[in-house]
């Protein structure tokens, strides 16, 4: 098993290198002079030349790539064109909010999607079957940016039971900063009312982000469950008179959930992409907001830095799901 883990990690290294090659190439496509962008609009010719020298922009491309890689390894993601701040610093500020939001959406996805799929997939009912299919199609097909606005309109605008946007109410002070995730920080500081406020602000964006994922996970779990319930060993268990519930819980569930584990890792990719849209709607100050500002100003270092961080996160999650899978199903380590 350890051998399998090491092999998996080593296999990720060339992919990661490839990812940096792509972000490097994309950074080069930009028309215009990056040295001038970094130096600022009012820099003199000498200052621009100095920046070009300092960043090595007068070197051949392969040399530039190696230096780029060296900078990445030191955690240097470059300087933003628009704010002239270190991108890594800025991301450190914006990323925790996104982790908080996607984590909650992920929890919702698993807590709702998996039981839904298990319940509907564990008995044979054609009507339920096509119902699940239709509901999941609706969930997957819902444009997140539209769903977010409709929820805002209904729950904040008409019913006025949830806040419109933001991470905290305008009168609430952020809790002392530890993780920069307001819910966790508020709990750590023992500020109960701040925690409640942060949670009410989380509900709409997290649900918006999770809908498509819940639908997708429910559908996959449903199909997997149906498949397992058709197996001989399940039929045997039912035939010898075990109650349906026990067969589902003890015999079918574990095997049915194996393929679900893999998909849950993949959902994180959708969540990280979807969060760009959702954060923009709910003024959630995370990666999505950072991306929106970056897109607005075509700030390439900011966008590439964000892309690298998001991709690295996605790869790590997939690595962890692979490990979880291998742990649950040891057969996989022999392939």
């Amino acid at each position, binding site marked *: 098993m350890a051998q399998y883990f090491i092999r998996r990690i080593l296999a990720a290294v*060339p*992919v*990661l290198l*490839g*990812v940096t*090659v*792509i*972000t490097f190439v*994309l*950074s080069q*496509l*930009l*028309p215009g002079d990056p040295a001038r962008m970094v130096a600022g609009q009012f820099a003199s010719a000498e200052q621009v030349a100095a920046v070009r020298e300092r960043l090595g922009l007068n070197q051949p491309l392969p040399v530039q790539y190696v230096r780029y890689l060296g900078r990445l390894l030191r955690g240097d993601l470059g300087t933003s064109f628009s704010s002239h701040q270190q991108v890594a610093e800025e991301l450190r500020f914006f990323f925790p909010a996104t982790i908080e939001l996607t984590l909650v959406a992920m929890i919702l996805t698993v807590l709702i999607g998996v039981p839904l799929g298990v319940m509907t997939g564990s008995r044979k009912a054609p009507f339920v*079957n*096509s119902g699940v*299919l*239709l509901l999941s*199609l*609706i969930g*997957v*097909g*819902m*444009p*997140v*940016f*539209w769903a977010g*606005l*409709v929820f*805002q*309109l209904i729950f904040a*605008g008409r019913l006025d039971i949830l806040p419109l946007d933001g991470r905290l109410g305008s009168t609430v002070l952020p809790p002392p900063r530890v993780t920069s995730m307001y819910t966790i920080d508020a709990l750590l500081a023992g500020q109960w009312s701040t925690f409640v406020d942060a949670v009410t602000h989380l509900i709409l964006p997290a649900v918006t982000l999770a809908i498509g994922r819940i639908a997708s996970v429910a559908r996959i779990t449903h*199909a997997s469950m*149906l498949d397992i319930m058709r197996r001989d060993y399940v039929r045997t268990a039912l035939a010898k008179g075990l109650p349906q519930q026990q067969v589902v819980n003890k015999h079918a569930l574990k095997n049915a959930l194996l393929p679900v584990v893999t998909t849950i890792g993949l959902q*994180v*990719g*959708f969540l*990280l*992409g*979807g969060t*760009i*849209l959702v954060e*923009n*709607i709910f003024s959630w100050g995370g990666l999505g907001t950072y*991306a*929106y500002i*970056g*897109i*607005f100003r*075509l700030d*390439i270092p900011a*966008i*590439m830095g*964000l*892309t690298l961080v*998001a*991709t690295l996160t*996605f*790869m790590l999650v997939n690595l962890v799901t692979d490990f979880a899978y291998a742990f649950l199903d040891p057969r996989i380590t022999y392939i």
Partner: protein
Amino acid sequence: MAPATPATKRLRPWWNSRFLKAVRNNPFSVLGIVIILAFFVFAIYPQGFTRYDPELLSLRTRLLPPSSEHWLGTDQYGMDVFTRVIYGARTTLYIVVVVLAIATGIGFVVGTVAGYFGGVVDEILMRFTDIIIAFPFLILAIAVNAALGRGLLQTMLAVGFSWWPGYARLVRGQILAVKNEEYVTAARALGGSNLRIMARHVFRNSVDPIIVRVTLDIGLVALATSGLSFLGLGAAPPTPEWGRMVADGRDFLLDQWWISTYPGLALFLVVVGFNLVGMILRDWLDPSSVGR
């Protein structure tokens, strides 16, 4: 089960065909077919359904609520929302066709070459595919789009470039599956060139799953590109594009809700429609998937 003889196959009545069976298996699919037909009709001939200009500013008719004059109201530029929703079908169809042409084009070439030649070529191409898949899709599309600059063409290129790995893998798998079939060996023994074998024998037999995949992808591509337009990439105003229209209405959401709501609803229906139809096609072309 008795083996199906050719005679029973020929005599199977039309109401028992596999296509209708696929439709019957999933009664909601009729809804999908209706939506898709409406979508194509609107996209092809939008001027037949409205008498307004989709891109004409009209200050006298700003922000009007839905009425018999303006069925879905008007936006902040005085343009008729219903008209723009109808014309938006054309924009969406155009975008989706271009993006999928790019994605299937790259995917076909990469997948065919990798699957057919195998070995080092396969290894290199598939590792490259792995790299593209390592990115969260929407984030890669944003990064490529930002690098190429603002504009609809750039967005279509960016989404197409981020979308092809699925096709490359699919095509490669299909080719590996049929590569060693006897009829391919026979074609080679008869002196068929690589290109001829690929085009006439290998490709022909791998086309069904690709059709299904394309149909299911239409909705997802529409979602992705309109998402980018929503973020300010993609179609520039005043082009009637659903994602952009949703974004345009945001500032008026609480009072003039119709500006954002209806274009998004149209997009939603089209995505669901294509997914439903994709499902029937899958059941029809690949009966082993029924009920999945």
